[in-house]
C-alpha cells in the first residue's frame, strides 16, 4: 500500500491504495463517487472518462497513484452551483441524448473537453471526438444534437432520419 493525495471535485482527499488500484476504483469504491461508470474495463467504451488536470482520460486505464497531486473532476461536479443541470447536461436531457444513461457520464465529460478546446465544433468534429465513447442505446444522433445545442449552434439535419 502507498499513500496517494489528490484534489477531487475541489476537495483534497488522501487514502492508502495498492499499486494496482485504478483511478476509477479509487473514485467509485474509496470515495463512493459512483457517477463514473465502468462499461468495459478494457479502454474501449469511455463510460469512465473523467478529467485529470483538465484533460479527458479513461479512469479505468490509469492508476490512482499516477494521479498524485492532480486535480480530478468527475460527473458529480458538473452541475451548476445551485444543483441545476449545466448547459451540456441540460442539452442531453432536452435532446434525448440518453436512454439508459449508462454512457452519459463519460459522454458529458468528453463533450465538455471538446467544447473547452473547440467551442463551436462541426458535426463531424463531434463524431470524431466521441470515437472512444460508446453508447448502446441512442444511435448517437441525439447525442450529437445535444452537443450542437450546448455549443449554441443550430442542429444539422442528419442522415438516416
Amino acid at each position: 500500500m502507498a499513500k496517494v493525495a489528490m484534489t477531487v471535485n475541489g476537495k483534497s482527499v488522501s487514502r492508502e491504495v495498492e499499486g494496482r488500484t485504478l483511478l476509477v476504483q479509487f473514485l467509485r469504491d474509496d470515495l463512493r463517487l459512483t457517477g463514473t461508470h465502468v462499461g468495459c474495463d478494457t479502454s474501449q467504451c469511455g463510460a469512465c472518462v473523467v478529467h485529470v488536470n483538465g484533460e479527458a482520460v479513461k479512469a479505468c486505464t490509469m492508476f490512482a497513484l499516477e494521479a498524485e497531486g492532480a486535480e480530478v473532476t468527475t460527473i458529480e461536479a458538473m452541475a451548476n452551483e445551485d444543483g441545476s443541470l449545466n448547459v451540456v447536461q441540460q442539452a442531453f436531457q432536452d435532446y434525448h441524448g440518453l436512454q439508459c444513461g449508462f454512457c452519459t457520464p463519460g459522454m458529458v465529460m468528453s463533450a465538455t473537453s471538446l467544447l473547452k478546446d473547440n467551442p463551436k465544433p462541426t458535426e463531424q468534429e463531434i463524431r470524431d471526438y466521441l470515437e472512444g465513447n460508446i453508447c448502446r442505446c441512442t444511435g448517437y444522433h441525439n447525442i450529437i444534437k445535444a452537443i450542437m445545442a450546448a455549443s449554441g449552434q443550430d442542429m444539422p439535419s442528419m442522415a438516416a432520419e
Partner: protein
Amino acid sequence: MYAFDIERPTSIADAVAALAKEDAQALAGGQTLIPTLKQRLAMPSVLVSLSGIAEIRGVCKDDAGLLCIGGGTTHGTVAKEAVAHYPGLAELAAHIGDPAVRNRGTIGGSLANNDPSACYPAAALASGATILTNTREIAADDYFQGMFTTALEEGEIVTEVKFPIPQSSCYMKFEQPASRFALVGVFVAKFADGVKVAVTGASNNGVFRWSEAEAALSSDFSASALEGMSLSADDMIADMHGTAAYRAHLVAVMTRRAVSAAK
C-alpha cells in the same frame, strides 16, 4: 491484475536505477500496459512510472533542423505541437485511438511496444528517425526487429526520438473499426534525396519499408508511378479482419492514396 508496487522517479537516472530491480517494468501512459496487466499477461513486481520525468517530455526543433520529441510526450501533445514543423506526423498522432487515449499514451511507449499495427513505428521508419535511449542512439532501420520486438535492452528507456523533417509526407491508415488500430497503415515521406515508404499493420514481421515503391517514387513522386506494382501476400498477417491477399492489396492502395495526399 497481480499485485505490484509503483515507483515515481523524477529523473532518468533514478528511473534507470529503479528498473534495475528484478521484474521491474516501465509504465508510460499505460494505454497498452494496463490492459495487458488486466489480462494477467505480465507480472511485474514494480512498475516504474515515467510520467514524473519532465526531461523526457516536450517537442522542439534542434539546430540541425530535426524535430525532437521526448519519449514521454503524449500523442495529444505531438498532435498539437508538431503541426507547425511536421504536419504529417502531427496528423498521425491526432488519429491514434481517441482523445482520452491520446492524452495518456506516449511516443516512447508506442515505439517500445512495437505493436505490428501501431502507427508511430511507420512514421519513425519512413522518416529515418533516430531513437535515443538512456545509453545510446539507434537508427530506426536497426531499431524495429519484428512484431513486438525492438533493439531495446532490458531496462533501457526511450528518452527522445529525432525526426528528420521531409519536404512532404502523409500517413494513410485503413482503420480496423473496432480497435481503431491500423488494419494497414502506410507512411510516405519525400526528402530531397529520395522517398521512403513504411508499412504497418500488414506484415507478420512487423513494420517494414517497401523498397520497390521507394525506388519508383524517388524518380517520379506520383501515384501513377506505382501503377501495376504489388506486394507478395507471403508473410502478410491474416486474421478475422482480412486475408493476407487483402492486406497486400490494401498496402498498394494506401500507398497510392498517401502519395496523392502528401503535403
